[in-house]
């Protein structure tokens, strides 16, 4: 056999890759040999290969090929991740280009587009991995949103719920008004931003011309104010104790409350308390039993509860209200101000603190064995410099908010009736059973009534 003077990769690579595939060298079945197994970190289903994937998958292929040559039963399981927020954002952007607004679609219509998108672009990345020579067992390719894997998600949810490790609660979450979903703390990027500090005058109730002044970066939220808070030790304001004030422009009367939480040195020493739109204010509100008024829609525009500027975007509203306050004589001054603002990693929108009903997984119990594994060498982190980071995380673990207000992904298996009653169940029929057990339905219901009730049930 003669050999060409130069090595020609283009000819060689496809030829041998097909040959390996046709002879099933990548395929593994359990047998008497020692197994050597790697599961691929599933790339985003509609993603394309980047240099990080190249490095990562080259390493995996070297390990798997070497193990195979050393007589082990080597199995490298490939697959893709549905990547809910990334994929949904791409589909929303694609629809926008076609002049379609996600808002105008039903869940089913949106999912139809999303699945079409997935069929079109899904799996490109796996084809690219083949070019690299990746010897994955393609017969075992999985997708995190295929039926069996979705069922595993639901089963594990119900398992943890029954164990009491999943619970529901109202929490202040990081709301992304562009993605219209909550995001985790880790998906928020804090940046220092040049802002303005607005000094706003509130008329003291029972007087004609006495004001107190607060300083805020968010004048557009004053309509949601529930109180003004002063520090009881601040002698400048002892005359305000027990008084009420009027929120400018909308003239809501709100109380002046006292709490040592207020920093006497900051701003004017008077703090506006807006429980629906600030985490600290929310906690202060809970402590002082203040009402919560949420004046923002999910997309960051003002709703009817704002009374004024309804429908305006929060940033437009900020500029407009500053002008309105000035015209009404309620704006004392404006200063330049630098502060940290959180932005969504995915959409770069300014994060809005928002109260929302969320589902959480308790982490403390589960974190312990996972921490022990690494500390006692059951699981090795290589290089081991990462052990400290890991330990720090696991010792300070917070409950996991698993709710996402997205359509592309698994739904939380909680079923609601029209009265807001809810149960957790795998299927609609099982949900109905649960409603029976909980006596939200009674035995005098006719079959037609039952059927109607069942029809109304919606998962979360």
């Amino acid at each position, binding site marked *: 056999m003669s050999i060409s003077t130069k*090595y020609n990769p*283009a000819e060689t690579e496809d030829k041998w890759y097909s040959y390996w595939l046709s002879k099933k060298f990548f395929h593994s079945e359990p047998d008497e040999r020692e197994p050597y197994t*790697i599961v691929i970190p599933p790339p985003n289903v509609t993603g394309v290969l980047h240099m990080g994937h190249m490095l990562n998958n080259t390493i995996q292929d070297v390990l798997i090929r070497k193990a195979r040559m050393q007589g082990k039963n080597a199995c490298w399981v490939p697959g893709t991740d549905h990547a809910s927020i990334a994929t949904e954002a791409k589909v929303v952007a694609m629809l926008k280009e076609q002049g379609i607004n996600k808002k105008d679609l039903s869940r089913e219509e949106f999912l139809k587009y999303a699945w079409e998108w997935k069929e079109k672009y899904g799996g490109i990345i796996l084809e690219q991995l083949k070019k690299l020579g990746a010897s994955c067992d393609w017969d075992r390719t999985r997708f995190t949103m295929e039926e069996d894997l*979705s069922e595993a998600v639901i089963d594990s949810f119900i*398992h943890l719920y029954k164990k009491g490790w999943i619970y529901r609660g109202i929490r202040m979450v990081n709301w992304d008004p562009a993605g219209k979903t909550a995001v985790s703390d880790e998906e928020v990027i804090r940046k220092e931003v040049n802002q303005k500090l607005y000094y706003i005058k509130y008329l003291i109730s029972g007087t004609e011309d006495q004001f107190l002044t607060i300083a805020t970066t968010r004048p557009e939220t004053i309509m949601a104010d529930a109180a003004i808070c002063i520090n009881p030790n601040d002698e400048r304001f002892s005359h305000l104790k027990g008084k009420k004030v009027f929120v400018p422009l909308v003239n809501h009367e709100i109380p002046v409350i006292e709490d040592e939480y207020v920093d006497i040195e900051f701003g004017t020493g008077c703090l506006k308390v807006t429980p629906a739109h600030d985490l600290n204010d929310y906690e202060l509100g809970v402590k002082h039993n203040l009402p919560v008024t949420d004046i923002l829609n999910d997309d960051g525009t003002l709703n009817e509860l704002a009374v004024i500027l309804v429908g305006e975007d929060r940033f437009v509203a900020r500029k407009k209200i500053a002008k309105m306050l000035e015209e009404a004589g309620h704006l004392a001054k404006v200063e330049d101000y630098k502060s940290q603002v959180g932005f969504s990693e995915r959409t770069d929108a300014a994060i809005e603190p928002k109260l929302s009903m969320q589902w959480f997984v308790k982490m403390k119990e589960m974190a312990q064995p996972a921490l022990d594994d690494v500390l006692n060498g059951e699981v090795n982190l290589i290089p081991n410099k990462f052990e400290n980071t890991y330990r720090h995380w696991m010792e300070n673990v917070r409950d996991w908010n*698993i709710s996402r207000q997205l359509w592309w992904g698994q739904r939380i298996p909680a079923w609601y009736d029209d009265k807001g009653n809810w149960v957790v169940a795998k299927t609609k029929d099982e949900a109905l059973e649960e409603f029976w057990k909980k006596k939200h339905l009674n035995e005098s219901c006719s079959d037609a009534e039952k059927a109607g009730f069942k029809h109304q049930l919606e998962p979360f």
Partner: protein
Amino acid sequence: MDTWFSSWLWPISVFDGFKNPENKDINYYYPTNDLVTAPEILFFWVARMIMAGHEFMGKKPFTNVYLTGIVRDKLGRKMSKSLGNSPDPIGLIEKYGADAVRVGMLMSSPAGNDLMFDESYCEQGRNFASKIWNAFRLVKGWEVDENLVNPNIQAISWFENRFNEALVEIEANFKQYRLSEALMITYKLVWDDFCAWYLEMVKPAYQQPIDAESYKATISFFENIIKLLHPNMPFITEELWHDDLFAERGELDCCIVAEFPKGGTFDEKLLKDAEVIKTVVAEIRNVRNQKQISPKEALPLSIKVNSDLGYDKWLNIIFKLANVAEAEMVNDKVVGATAFMAGKDEFFIPLTENVDVEAERERLNADLVYLQGFLKSVDAKLSNERFVQNAKPEIIANERNKKADAEAKIKIIEESLAVLG
């Protein structure tokens, strides 16, 4: 729901551990062995998979987690679409070949450190593939003469030992997931030891045949090298594997399932001696360059042996690689010759008509100045109390060795200078 609430089940759900617990796949493959991923998702994904493993399987999901570095550009910036500094991986594969890109990526990414990617790494990978290809073509071009006696026993014995030594180092690095280091050892073994030294030692003179034993040994080495390279460079190795130089291959006799070479023992003294021989050859080539002597002109060589290295076995190699005509063992320094050292032994090339005494003296003086400076720096270290108190004993021993070595060399140079007059 959060995507991670599905991917934390991945090592279980890919084997249908929820739908069908205790099925034969999950019982066989779980827990898996290695996970290779990025440190950014150590908490998001890795930690949660370990939790899910315990909660749903009562067992960890994997034993080793290899955390790769981040791929950056050569300025150290993270690669991103918006910066436009990320090359298209498929474009690279088309330009350089998949093997070259794999080698390029691996060589530049020591375990746990970020990778500063530059296209020149792929070029280096491609050059490596060409080197292997050309070496293969060289061997393939050899004619065998069954009547010839094997003159390469020492060369063959050396490479066999060298291969075993490298294999031990490679396996040790693999054990610690130092894939980049393992590849670097393989690269040097193939490029330097096999191509630059071994093949030069055994290759027959132009248009001359080779003896059967050397031929067989060389092909067997080549086959081992191809197997060793396969995990890193799967395509070129599979292509060469099927060349009839090796054998008629059955349809399932493929490199991908060939047995990875197993380490054997190796003779450390033999390997150490070979390094001295390589120095001798390099020094003679050096002398030729400096004195502009044609490589075709065979030189005489005198050796004053101060060590226990048995030169008899190596002379053929020195003759062939350095074009030495004859070697004489001497007890005293040779007057008026170019001298150099390798290991503890002294070498002289008597170059009566060629020697420029002035130039020789200049060269020796330059060496002397360098060695004296070196000795001074070692002395400074050894007289630094803090260093001597705090450094590990083996480091101090190493410094003392350097001192003794430099002193011995200085003595020899001074003697040579005296001989020059």
